[in-house]
């Protein structure tokens, strides 16, 4: 299954992964339109953490033990057994933030509407997630890992 891993020594905390993540999850895929006109505004599903001199780009790890799936009050989080991905269904999400409470990575957040959550979906429409492709320092790796 696909996974993103971080090269801690190579990440410079530039935030370009966040920009491309936001763009990939926008309707227009156009930075200016997405920022100015879209409602709700697209949000990045990545958080950059900095503790100088180290920086890190953090996102949903699609955990094997899926605490968010078990905690979800609505049945909106599911584990796709074929791909090993944790899938979020925005139509079912009730915005109770229970997944936020139990995510050990703090990798789930409210989207800009404040009514549902947003998290990394590994860019299902792309071969390689946008953050990985566009990382200027090759700090992110998209790998296929064994189950």
């Amino acid at each position: 299954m696909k996974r993103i891993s971080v090269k801690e020594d190579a990440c410079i905390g530039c935030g370009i992964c966040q920009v491309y993540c936001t763009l990939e999850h926008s309707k227009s895929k156009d930075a200016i339109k997405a920022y100015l006109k879209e409602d709700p505004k697209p949000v990045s599903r990545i958080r950059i953490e900095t503790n100088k001199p180290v920086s890190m780009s953090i996102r949903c790890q699609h955990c094997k033990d899926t605490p968010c799936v078990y905690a979800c009050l609505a049945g909106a989080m599911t584990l796709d057994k074929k791909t090993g991905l944790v899938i979020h269904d925005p139509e079912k999400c009730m915005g109770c933030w229970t997944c936020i409470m139990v995510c050990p990575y703090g990798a789930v957040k409210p989207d800009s509407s404040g009514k549902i959550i947003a998290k990394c979906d590994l860019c299902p429409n792309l071969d390689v997630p946008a953050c990985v492709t566009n990382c200027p320092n090759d700090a992110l790796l998209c790998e296929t890992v064994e189950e």
Partner: protein
Amino acid sequence: MVKYLIIGGSAGGVGAVEAIREVDPTGTIALISEEVFPQYSRPMISEFVSQEATLATMKYRSEQFWKKHNVHAYTGKTALNIDFDKKIVKLDDGQKLEYEKLLLATGGRPVVPQMDGVTKEGVFTFTELASAEGITSKLQHAKSAVVLGGGLIGVSVADALVKRGIKITLIELNDRLIHVVLDEKASELAETVIKATGTKLILSQTVKQILGKQGNPNEVGGVLLQDDTIISCDLVVLAVGVNPRIELVEDSKVEIQKGIIVDRFMQTNIPDVYACGDATEAHDFLVKENRRLPLWPLAHVGGRVAGYNMAGQTTEYEGGTVMSSMNYFRLPIISVGKINPEDSSEYEILVDVQPEKPVYRKIVLKDDVIVGFIFLGEVEKAGILFRLIKNQVNVAEVKEKLLSKDFGIISLPETVRKEMFVVH
């Protein structure tokens, strides 16, 4: 003979079915549920009343769930009694089901306080779809409602009714809202947000009688408070608590205190009989003893653990603790663990308050280990703290960073970080 028999089709029952099927794809499973449509999300009934969710979107699992998992679902049926020696459950329609392993996932029942007028038309509890449907059917003609109980359920129904344009008076016996998970400051901030919607809050007070309508004494017309104030209303919602449903085992050999006692494998004192969820007293990882924790996610996980063990895959329940997450009145709040320590000299308390936003974050530590926190207004990194509580991580080195903007996984010791991530 049924290999696995489950009584209850909500979070715990669903969790058990999923776990059993992971281990045993073919063993016969039967499930008894009083509700005809059991696989819905009970916490979503407030979204159903506010019309933000429909019957379709509030499904916890699909309608084909029972079929897909090859479960014989006895829906709309009640288990009447259990013969633990002969391993037989009798249903209300006379059927008898013989089992090998039994799971009691019977849930809770809303508390209905004994008071005059409680049987009047227009009085509801709020834990099931039926109560949500009952309230919804009244909304066309109702203008105002009294919600008795300022806990999580009371606040959830108040939020839903405000969204439907109903004038609400919320009455709570305690001196603060959701007192199990909020402290004085968090309640004060929540009160301000709730009052801004026009909702009236009355704390340290309760209802002593439900009054009838003028011209129709059998229908709700108002309530009489302990201090003799009268508040007129068209609806009363009782949200004062939930008791474990233990009537099936009350006069049996099954060990009960307030709820059914289970061990770390969700097994009762009777061999082959398991229990989970609101009906039980199960392990709390913080206080390290059994207690009642009637919370949906814990019911689900408890059901899963029971399911694995019933199917022969020995699995230990990690336990839960007092924890709540909510987003009512558009105010996100996450609260976990001990947030109101009784003897504050033994505890260290870190606080960040920004009342204008409002943001309030409080972390409670004992001997450099986090034992509880409240995040109000800003909740994003709550899960990182939840993990630190659960794993009892010593945070002496990062204590001063815990409430800083830059706090994150990167603040944790490198060894902890590398355990969590694939890092190159």
